[in-house]
């Protein structure tokens, strides 16, 4: 597999403040890779190092098989889409898209053809002579993408490109962006703090936290098998149930959580008595009115409050011992099945929960 972008031991600090710690990253040819994390995690710094706007304190940056540490940004052939779009306000749509070709001294006929192609790709054919200020936010976004694609970049770098759009347009552009990237096949690095964006768009995503990579993998891998509490918390809407290992049979683990005993699977070697967290996603749990019966994971409780969201409802269930669980019910009918005060049973399949070793105190990244 061809590697288009490679970072080896890349570290970065601003003065005495380290922002990246020995980062290793590989991006394959044609891959759509997301860097996901909260603000200040180092994802934009990483992008700027690849683009050549920042010089890493240590480590090597390789683009297309060539070490580019000493290559200035304008010779790296990376197309960048900025959060603010950064379109040139004194140029028409066409001149913006043609900019990269003109500074490369491309032949006039080629400029004309490639700029028009790029605009057609983002469905803005016919907008060539418009001024930038005449365009809506979504259209400006498309021009920014067309401008970056027109230079046929080795890698397309996108820095939170959708965060300035309203929610509906953002969803629309997400689909569009995926289609576009598949169609063009350009290697793409996409920086975002939005987990939904990262999950829908990426071939592979890299979750970053405090200047380090927490975990990298496909969206399904990261969602199903987060290896750290941070990743578990960042993707989906997890409940953390803290307890100790009561029993272990091959990969099946029984965990004692207060008065409750739940079953989960883990590949890890967990000693009996070891502190663990059972991570249960609000989306993976089910609610029923029937009592627990003999099911593996079934905890009785009361609905403390409900949040109606149209296609789904979010409930907080309070167990007798005070533990609270968030549960999300999908509602094709748009009608919620439960109301506040209802007695319910929260249940889930053992394979839908994750076991992470460690106590509450050992997980400082966790938001309470």
């Amino acid at each position, binding site marked *: 597999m061809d590697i288009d972008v490679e970072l080896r031991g890349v570290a970065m600090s601003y003065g005495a403040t380290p922002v990246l710690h020995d980062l290793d990253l590989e991006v394959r040819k044609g891959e759509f890779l997301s860097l996901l994390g909260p603000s200040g995690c180092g994802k934009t710094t990483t992008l700027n190092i690849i683009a050549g706007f920042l010089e890493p304190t240590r480590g090597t940056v390789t683009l297309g098989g060539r070490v580019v540490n000493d290559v200035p940004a304008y010779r790296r052939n*990376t197309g960048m889409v900025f959060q603010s779009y950064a379109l040139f306000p004194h140029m028409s749509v066409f001149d913006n898209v043609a900019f990269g070709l003109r500074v490369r001294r491309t032949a006039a006929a080629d400029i004309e053809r490639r700029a028009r192609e790029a605009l057609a790709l983002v469905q803005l054919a016919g907008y060539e002579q418009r001024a930038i200020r005449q365009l809506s936010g979504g259209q400006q976004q498309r021009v920014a993408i067309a401008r970056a694609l027109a230079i046929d970049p080795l890698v397309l770098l996108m820095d939170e490109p959708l965060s300035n759009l309203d929610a509906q347009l953002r969803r629309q552009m997400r689909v569009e962006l995926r289609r576009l990237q598949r169609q063009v096949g350009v290697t793409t690095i996409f920086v975002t703090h939005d987990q939904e964006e990262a999950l829908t768009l990426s071939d592979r995503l890299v979750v970053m936290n405090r200047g380090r990579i927490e975990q990298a993998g496909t969206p399904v891998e990261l969602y199903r098998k987060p290896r750290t509490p941070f990743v578990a918390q960042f993707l989906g809407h997890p409940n953390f149930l803290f307890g100790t290992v009561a029993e272990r049979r091959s990969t099946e683990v029984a965990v004692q959580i207060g008065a409750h005993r739940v079953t989960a699977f883990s590949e890890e070697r967990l000693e009996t008595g070891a502190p663990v967290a059972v991570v249960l996603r609000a989306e993976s749990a089910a609610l029923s009115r029937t009592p627990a019966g003999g099911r593996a994971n079934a905890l009785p409780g009361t609905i403390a409050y409900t949040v109606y969201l149209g296609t789904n409802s979010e409930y907080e269930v309070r167990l007798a011992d005070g533990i609270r669980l968030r549960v999300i019910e999908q509602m094709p009918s748009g009608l919620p099945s439960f109301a506040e005060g209802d007695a319910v049973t929260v249940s889930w399949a053992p394979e839908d929960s994750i076991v992470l070793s460690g106590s509450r105190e050992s997980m400082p990244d966790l938001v309470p």
Partner: protein
Amino acid sequence: MIGRPRRAVVAGLLAPAVVLLVLFFVIPSADLFRLSLAHMDAQRAIHHDLSLVNYKNFATNPYFHRMVWGSVKLTVAVTALCLLLGYPAAYSMVRARSRLSRTVLYAIVVSPLLISVIVRSYGWVVLLANNGVINGTLLSLGLIERPIRMLGTFGSVIVATVHVLLPFMMLPIASALQSLDAVLERAAQSLGASPWQTFWRVTLPLSMPGVVAGTSLVIALTLGIYITPLLVAGPLQPLFAIGIYYVTLSQLDFPLGAALSFVLLAFTLLVIAAAARLLRVVKGSVA
């Protein structure tokens, strides 16, 4: 967003400035204009007779034409030099990495404005005189055998005027560059533009409003400057404002001085109007 203020409020806010302008600018100007239509006879008696003799004098006297030409030459030279020196300086000032160095640079640029123009111009006399600092240094180094005449030359007027007016070029340019989002320059570079191409295609066009504003300020101020050239080059230097000074205070021909003032005023307004027009054209493509 605050709504449009009411008319009475607008009027109230404008009134003090309007009253001040009418009392101390409009009325005196009207008076001066009336004076420009008077004329002084050979016995230096002033007749208020509504004649255009002073304006005719200006139109036909080659001394005044030389004076206008001198002012135009000075304006072209000073404006060009202020641009060439001021733009890079303003750029590095705005783009200085640390806050501290930005502040220090700003202070350096603004500081001349805090010192009297007479003091600053005298500084040039001290530097450029035959027994001044520059000649003294060159002589003692043995680089020249006798002092080079610098004071009183057109060159010395250019140098001193550039020094006095440079802040007026730099501050508008710096303010335009300040409002230019640096991410645009990054965008240009990510698209393959070298620093030079980035400057020509992005930075310069987008800072044009500041360039035009600074240029029109410097043009207007150079056309009317007289203290500085007077101090470094004396009252015989053929410059418009010095001519007015000379006619009024040496020949005491107040009507002619008034007429020349109005010619200069009209000329300056014309140049500023042209610059404003240019500004609109540029802005139309930017904003």
